[in-house]
Every structure is written in structure tokens, then in C-alpha cells.
């Protein structure tokens, strides 16, 4: 294997590209877990918003409209999830699974109806998300590292920092965290806990919309059946690793971005493709096992 600098730069670049959708989804997962709404419907939300981002772009050829629409769709779905869990006291596991299963069927169905296909739909004339121009970096290693990234990829990092400020520095974030720690205590001081929970999670659902755009309008402009490919679950794991901390999410989603990139790099080696595809998921399980092991040991002390 050739481990030249330019090669490592390319790995770095694809790590960034793979991690940003996971990062955005785990930002949402972070808000959900901090406000004590256990949302496993992230996967279905991501898939549906990726589909609508593509569909709107295909029909109207307006990138702003597509992104806006994807964000709106994601927020709507997250609202439904939150409403069912918080207000109607539905079991979070069932609500989430219902959304995920529905999203899978719904997007496949629409794919059939709108595009008359079952698998992949792509249109070479379709514009994806605008790329950030890094020509000022020249054409060397730096350009390889940071090139070919869309506006939303960069936005993801800024949003993580913004979420850190909101959750840990503002009064609003303080209250959301308090609600998550002890909803009864918050309610005893006259906070409308349910309203806060639903509002916070719904707004954070917008991040999933952005992640959806990255999937179908990012480095490639196409929609593939089940394009989200369990990234929603991976983000859930990433969020668990960082305990809902937005800056921690940067690290944990980078881990998953890197393992996915690794699977790509190792493609031309003797390892079987199917095995390689498992790497990110094996990494997820391993990371969770290690993390929980450490936590359990801490708790014992």
C-alpha cells in the first residue's frame, strides 16, 4: 500500500466527507438525549429527508428550496416522533421503529412512483450542493485535504460549535439539560417540561435535514434505495459515545467517518468487500463496548 502524504490527505478528505452527515445527525441525537426524548427514528428521518432533498432538486432545480424542504421534512418527522413519545406517552422504541420502517417503505414507494425505478436514480444534469472553493490553497496536500467539500460539510463543524454554545452557555441550553436530568424537578418550578422537550427536539430535527441533503446532493447527486444505510443508528452510537456533548460528537463522528474511509481504502487489498463494509459497524460495536466497559468500571468505584 502506498502511504504517501497525498494518499493520507485523501483519506483525511474522505473521513471529513463521511463524518459530516453522522455529525449532523448526532447533534440532533444530542439534543434529544439531553432533553430525555429517546429518539431512534433518526434513521428514518434521515432517509426521508435525503429523498425529499433529491426530489425537490430534481423537480425545481433550486438548491435553497431543496435544503429548506429537507430541513422542514426532518423537523416534521421529528415533531411527530417527539409528540408521540412525550405527549402521547408512546414507547420510544416502537415509535422510532415505526418511523424507520415507514420511511423505508415510503421512499421506496415514491422512488417507484416518481422515478419508475427500484434501485438508483441519478441525473447528470442535476446540481448538487455548492462546493467550497479552496483554490487559494493551491493544488498541494492542503487542497486535497480540504477540497471537494460542500458548504454544508463546513457548516456541520460550525453548527457543532454553535450547539456547544447553545447547550452549555445559554440559559435555554441550561434549561434543556436540566429538564433531561430531572423532569420532575423542572416541573416543580413551573417549567412546562413537555412543551420544552417537543420544541427542542423538533428544532434539532433540522440538522437531520441537512444531513439528508449531504447524502443525496453532496459528493454525488443521486438517490439510492436505503441511501442512509444505518447512518442514523451509527449517529445514535456516536452520540452515546460523546454523552450528547456537541464537541464530543465531532470526535466520535470522526471515528466513524474514518472507519468508513478505511473500508474504502482497503478496497484494493485481499480483504473481501463484504468484510470491509462491516468495518464501520464493527467499529461501532467495539467503541460502544469499550466505552461502556470504562463507564461500568467507573461506576463500580
Amino acid at each position: 500500500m502506498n502511504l504517501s502524504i497525498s494518499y493520507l490527505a485523501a483519506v483525511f478528505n474522505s473521513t471529513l466527507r463521511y463524518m459530516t452527515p453522522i455529525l449532523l445527525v448526532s447533534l440532533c441525537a444530542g439534543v434529544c438525549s439531553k432533553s430525555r426524548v429517546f429518539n431512534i427514528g433518526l434513521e428514518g428521518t434521515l432517509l426521508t429527508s435525503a429523498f425529499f432533498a433529491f426530489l425537490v432538486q430534481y423537480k425545481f432545480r433550486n438548491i435553497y428550496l431543496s435544503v429548506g424542504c429537507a430541513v422542514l421534512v426532518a423537523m416534521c418527522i421529528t415533531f411527530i416522533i417527539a409528540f408521540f413519545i412525550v405527549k402521547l406517552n408512546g414507547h420510544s422504541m416502537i415509535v422510532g421503529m415505526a418511523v424507520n420502517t415507514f420511511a423505508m417503505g415510503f421512499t421506496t414507494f415514491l422512488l417507484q412512483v416518481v422515478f419508475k425505478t427500484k434501485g438508483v436514480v441519478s441525473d447528470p444534469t442535476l446540481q448538487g450542493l455548492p462546493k467550497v472553493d479552496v483554490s487559494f490553497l493551491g493544488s498541494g496536500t492542503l487542497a486535497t485535504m480540504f477540497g471537494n467539500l460542500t458548504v454544508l460539510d463546513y457548516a456541520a463543524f460550525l453548527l457543532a460549535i454553535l450547539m456547544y454554545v447553545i447547550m452549555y452557555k445559554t440559559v435555554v441550553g441550561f434549561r434543556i439539560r436540566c429538564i433531561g436530568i430531572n423532569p420532575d424537578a423542572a416541573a416543580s418550578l413551573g417549567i412546562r417540561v413537555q412543551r420544552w422537550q417537543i420544541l427542542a427536539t423538533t428544532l434539532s430535527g433540522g440538522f437531520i435535514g441537512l444531513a439528508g441533503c449531504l447524502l443525496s446532493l453532496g459528493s454525488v447527486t443521486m438517490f439510492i434505495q436505503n441511501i442512509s444505510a444505518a447512518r442514523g443508528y451509527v449517529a445514535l452510537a456516536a452520540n452515546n459515545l460523546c454523552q450528547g456533548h456537541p464537541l464530543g460528537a465531532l470526535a466520535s463522528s470522526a471515528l466513524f467517518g474514518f472507519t468508513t474511509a478505511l473500508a474504502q481504502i482497503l478496497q484494493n487489498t485481499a480483504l473481501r468487500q463484504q468484510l470491509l463494509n462491516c468495518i464501520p459497524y464493527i467499529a461501532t460495536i467495539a467503541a460502544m463496548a469499550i466505552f461502556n466497559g470504562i463507564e461500568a468500571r467507573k461506576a463500580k468505584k
Partner: protein
Amino acid sequence: MIFELRNITKYYGDTLANDDISIHLNEGEILCVVGENGAGKSTIMKILYGLEQPTSGEILVKGQPVRFRNPSDAMAHGIGMVQQHFMLFESLTVAENIVFKREPRRGPLLDKKAMLAAVSELSERYKLKIDPSARIENCPVGLRQRVEILKILYQNAEIIVFDEPSAVLTPIEVEALLQTMKELAAAGKSIVLITHKLNEVMAVADRIYVMRSGKLVAERKKEETSTDELAYLMVGHHPATREIPPVKTGETLLATEELSLHKDGRDVLSKVSIHVDGGEVVGIAGVSGNGQSELESVINGLEAPTGGKVLLCGRDVTHESVHTRRELGMAHISEDRFLWGGAVSGTLSENAIMAKEEREPYNHKGFLRKKKITEYAGSLIERFSVKASGPDSLLGELSGGNAQKLVAAREIMMETPVLICCEPTRGIDIGASDFIHNEILNKREKGDAVLLISSELSEITTLSDRIYVMFEGKIVGEFNRGAVDEKALGLLMLGGKIDA
């Protein structure tokens, strides 16, 4: 007069919880409301804090009639409550807990400097020492309560209601709390203390209301009354002198030998050796949290001791399972009927045959026989006069006292040689507790051994043939019936010594 309840009556369904109660509170005074469990104290407390609305009657704050639909309404009128179960954010700091809902801010940001300053200022003003940046999860109970008090003061409460505040505290913490109450009153706050602990009342009260079965039966100034009078007023008669016939004690049925338990870096039990003989009720007296519940779970087999032995009917069961111990002859009335004692969402029938579900005639070749079970549950309900619509109603629908009766019935009917009772009458009315006490004594007369763990001293002294006193995980005294008075016991429970 800062606050007044006028002719408050409260019905729960058909049950009259408060009957025409009128009380008032003056500025800067400490007012105590005393009464037995079930006397209506907690209902009054809930009404004045907006958790319940009265069926009829008026609430006046500073002479103005008000309505409290929820606790925030009460808080808006300057009434704060120190809850028995703390409402705190465990993983946050003391300061963050105190400022919640009225956070100092700089634009949208939480102003941490101002927060720390405000909290330190508050803590100095009321002489309630705390470390603003300590995390609640690392604070002992007494400190957490202090945080609760500061939280209420930060919300600008003028009236502070304490609901049985000393139940969870150690004696030293109780002392500090009473001192705090006096200081708050001196600082112009008005205090309502709801309790049934008369020594605390006599230590701090200016004025005392006594409640009994939903009615206000007396109002006294502290100087005009005594613990004895208050006790008499609370119960309505002089404590019944129950005839407890002497029973010849048999052999030792339950014993522990130098039982130790090391947990969370401290010795919660150290070398506890006790024995209970047949025909004997043995009481363990102590302030809650001095190792009694650990002793309970080690004897039951829920927790393994780090040293020592548990002997049941002469057999070493230290390493036996709960099931084996029960089969060998142990039954257990646990402290919390809804958490440990029974299944809240199960029917009375189901709860009644728990632990008998593998036995004939309730189980025939692996099938449960509904008819036999219902019959049995019916018989328990009748014999123990459990107030319920029938064997099919759910345990959770029952009042605490009735649920406790059912759990007690189930365990007593196991007819085991050893019965362990933990706080068997906590939070239940006098009728039900008298009933359970009688059943415990019946068991004793049959020659069985009963271990009674209770923080209610009067329960221990009336029932027990022998009393052990526990303090900080150790047995610090052993007395036969009548060999010691409550005062001396109380002293021992607080870690003091009695001159022999």
C-alpha cells in the same frame, strides 16, 4: 397575618380528608402542624402548595383571596416548599440548582459569575453554608436539603413549608435544620413545619395546630403545652396499654454472627450479632440510615455480607438464595409495599399468591387454578379486612394502608417460623397499624420469631420483648422489655451514651 386557610374542606371521592380546617400564619413565626399519619396533614400541605384544590374554603395571602391551580401559582405568591423527596438536578452544581428558572443572564447567555455571586450572597445572608460549585451528587442529604431551602429563598419565598423534613436526616443534621428554621424566622420568613416528631416541634415551634382524622382538634402556644399533651391530642386517647401476655421463648430461630458489610467505602454494618428466639418479637431501633435496611437485605439474602454469618433455624444460610431462605422458613414484610412488597399493576389475587404460585392447590401440574387462587385471595381480604372491591382489583388502586395489609397478610399467612417486618406501619392509618401489630403479636404467641425493624420508636417499645439499638452500623445496646425508656433509647440512637 401573612397567610390564612379559611374553612378548608377536602373530599377525595367519598373520603373526607380535611374537615373545615381554618389555620393562619403570622409573619416571622414558626408554625407546626402535627398529627398522626392519615390525620390530614399532608392534604393540608398539598392544598397550601397548590398540588390539590380544596373542595370548599378559601385561601388568603396577605388578606387577599387567591387560588392556587399548581405549585407555580403558590410560588408566585411567595410560598415555597421543601419537599420530602428532593427535587434536584443531581449532576449539576449547587449554584445551578439554586438559580434554575430565574437564571442571571447576559443576553441569551447564562451569566455564571453573577450566578455564583448571587448564590454566595444568599448563602451568607441566611447563614446556610454551601459550596456553590459542588455537584449535588457528591453532597450528603443534609446539604441537599439546604440546597432545597436556598432554592426556595432564591425564588423569593416569604413562606417556607417543610414537609416531614427530618425523616431523612441524621441527628446532627436535624439539629442544624432546626437551627436554620429559627434563623429564617428571625430573618422575617414565616415557616410551616409539618411533622409528627414532637421533640422537634417543642424545639422550634411558636404555635402548634394538632390534627386528628381530618379535623383540627387543638391550637396551642408552645409555652402552654408539652409533648405529653400533644401526644394525647394527636391520638385522642392515652396510648392504649395493650395486654401482652408473656410467652415462653423457644430456641433461637434467627441469628446473625458478627455480620459486616462494607459498601461505598464505609462500614454500613460492623459485627452485628443479634438473635431472635421463638415466641419473641425483637425490635431494632435506630434513626433511618444507620444500617437497618442493609441488615434487612443481608438477612433476606438480597445482599451478601462481607463478613459474618446468617443462621436461620439453626442452619447457616449466609450463602443461600432468597428463595432457599424463604423455603426454609422466612417471610418478609418489606419497607415499601409498592416498590418491594407487591406488584402495583397486578391484581390482589396475583399479589396474594406470590411465593405460593408453585404450591398445591394453587398450582396443579403447572397450571394456575384461578378458582382456588381467588378463593384464597378473598379469604385474606376478609380476614385482614382489606378495603378493596374484590380480588380482581389492582394493588395500585388500594390506599397505602390497605396495600400494606394485603402484603402483611400474604407474608403472615406463609406461616413461617421467622417473620421480618420492616417499617410495617409506615404511612398507614392507626386502624390498619393496630391491626398489623395485633397480627405480629399473634405470630409471637404461636411461638414464631419476629424481627421488627422500625424507625418509629413507640412501635418498637410497645411490641418488642427485646430491643437492639443500632447506630452507624453497630449494635450499641440491648434491652429487655421495660428495662429502658424511650428517652434513653432516643439518646442511644443519636450516638449518645446512657449512664449505667
